[in-house]
């Protein structure tokens, strides 16, 4: 089928725009989303198309952004609230984990909270320690919200649409490094193309080792798979896509075939994605384990400014390959 390469930024922009066209209740709020045209240009042209009512610049008030979205969603709107970067969402942890995720529960289902928090995530580009996080797993610790983290344009499109249409709160993170990355989108894409919440995806098939990843980690996994293929090792790449809920069944299925696994993530290593996946795997797939499960993540250090050591701290395909080789 005919397809064209589209940058992930554009895929997200298209999904968001179409949803705003489709449903008058969907609106955008966040820092610099309107007049500045979006810090990451995702909302470029939105102000002109949808006006100030539906494209709302906010003050630098993350607590209020986080909480106002909850109130507006309870009252019947479908806010898409943007945190300029996920680092700033630390200031909204209470609004997200204690309000968005719990309002439905502690009123026993009286309200629904159909909101999406969008946040640019990840690091690189010398943004320095306080601006260099991919802490999705921390937010996914809390039940009551879903967490989606796409790795390519088509997924981003379908996942964001689902997130907006679903009646539950969703934290939707977008890897900054993937914004400009082109990947194919079919020309005749259906505007109702929706990717179910909690559904992972096999991004590459292989029988020798399973690489489990999400978002930018998928890129490193795919690059590593190509390097490994040169040595005759066929890696299967499982893109979980959602950190909550987790499509562990898909991982198990792959693991039953490969019996080996390396987990790849952009985040800091402790109390994170790798731990959760490895713990599930060894528990449920104990009899299939031919080797220990390995984790590749960022180094356990705040991120420095200087370019070389920043890169040193970052996971990459080479580190994934090394980890695979240790368990072959």
């Amino acid at each position: 089928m005919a397809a064209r390469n589209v940058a992930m930024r554009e895929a997200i922009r298209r999904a968001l725009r179409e949803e705003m066209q489709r449903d008058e209740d969907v609106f955008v709020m966040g820092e610099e989303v309107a007049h500045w045209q979006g810090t990451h240009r995702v909302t470029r042209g939105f102000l002109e198309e949808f006006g100030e009512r539906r494209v709302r610049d906010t003050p630098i008030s993350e607590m209020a952004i986080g909480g106002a979205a909850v109130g507006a969603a309870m009252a019947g709107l479908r806010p898409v609230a943007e945190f300029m970067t996920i680092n700033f969402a630390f200031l909204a942890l209470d609004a997200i984990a204690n309000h968005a995720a719990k309002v439905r529960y502690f009123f026993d289902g009286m309200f629904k909270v159909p909101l999406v928090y969008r946040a640019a995530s990840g690091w690189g580009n010398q943004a320095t320690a306080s601006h260099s996080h991919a802490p999705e797993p921390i937010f996914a610790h809390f039940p009551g919200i879903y967490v989606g983290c796409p790795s390519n344009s088509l997924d981003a499109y379908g996942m964001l649409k689902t997130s907006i249409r679903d009646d539950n709160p969703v934290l939707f993170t977008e890897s900054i490094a993937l914004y400009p990355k082109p990947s194919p989108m079919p020309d005749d894409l259906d505007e109702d193309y929706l990717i179910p919440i909690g559904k992972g995806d096999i991004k590459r098939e292989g029988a020798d080792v399973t690489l489990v990843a999400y978002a930018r980690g998928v890129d490193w996994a795919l690059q590593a798979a190509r390097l490994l293929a040169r040595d005759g090792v066929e890696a299967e790449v499982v893109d979980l896509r959602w950190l909550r809920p987790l499509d562990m069944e898909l991982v198990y299925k792959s693991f039953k075939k490969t019996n080996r696994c390396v987990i790849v993530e952009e985040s800091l290593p402790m109390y994170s994605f790798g731990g959760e996946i490895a713990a599930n795997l060894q528990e449920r797939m104990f009899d299939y384990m031919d080797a220990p499960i390995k984790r590749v993540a960022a180094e356990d250090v705040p991120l420095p400014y200087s370019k070389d050591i920043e890169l040193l701290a970052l996971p990459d395909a080479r580190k994934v390959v090394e980890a695979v080789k240790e368990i072959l």
Partner: protein
Amino acid sequence: MASPSKEMLLDWYRQMALIREFEETCHRLYEEKRITGVYLHLYSGHEASGVGSMAALRKSDHVITAYRDHGIALILGMDPKAVMAEMMGKKTGSSGGKGGSMHLASKDHNFWGGYAIVGGHLPLAAGIALEARYRGKDDVTMTYVGDGATNNGYFHESLNMSAIWDLPVVWIIENNGYGMGTEVERASGQIELHRKAEAYGIKSFGRVDAQNALEVYAVALKAVAYAREKGPAVIEHVTYRYRGHGVSDKQYDARDDMSAELKEWVEKREPIKILRDCIKSKYGDVGDILARHEADAERIVAESVAFAEASEMPSTYEDLMRNTYVASELVYKTERSVGAGID
């Protein structure tokens, strides 16, 4: 300024008597361990603050508050049975026993709930008001916030957001003198709390003696009208909490100065007495009606206790897990894949 009718005043009396009876009963039930848990923040002493201000609302307006929410729920007309059952964590409670004392709410009454994180409900109020603005409705969101909460970042960001977006919120600061054990003067650089409105360019309607329901009502009427037409408004209600911060507060037992202070409020500024005196002075002998309201309050609360105690607790795993998420009804079209997109 519309002055309240006889009928209204009598109804206020009914509400205030009901709240007082409900709260004092809760207190007793807690001492008797028939209500359990650690948090129970009573509205006794605050009655006129809620009753007088909410009388200025119409049915389609919205209300939201913090954990000191029993009185607000009753004023809005929530069934005392469901409220009492919630105190006891029963299935028949207004939040199915999941929320307890701090998390009452009723969608049917446009009551968006009580919240337990100090200041956490303030941006929610802004969001609820935004829905009204967004759809071009002129419904007002009346938001109660404690004196202590005004020192929290949530307060600042939410009030400012309401200002720049002209949101129809009436921010009512219930200044009862304390946040837990901390006097306003020790917690806030600005002790006239309504003057905080200046930081947001928000219209302030000043400070009101909130033990007097009529004064509360008079100012609330103006503020609500203003919010409906123009944008956010601030009012400071000066009031007092008769039962301390919550059931764990032992200050009033331990400190003579505090029990003396309490005594003074009860003797000189008791809101129910002030209203009673006002009604009597205006309308002569309405003692029968007032007595009937008091008797009704007793009966209603007793019935609510009986109802609550007869109700079942949620107890199954299913009860525990229910309503973490809402079932989604999306139709998922078949997914398609066009490859990994790396080459």
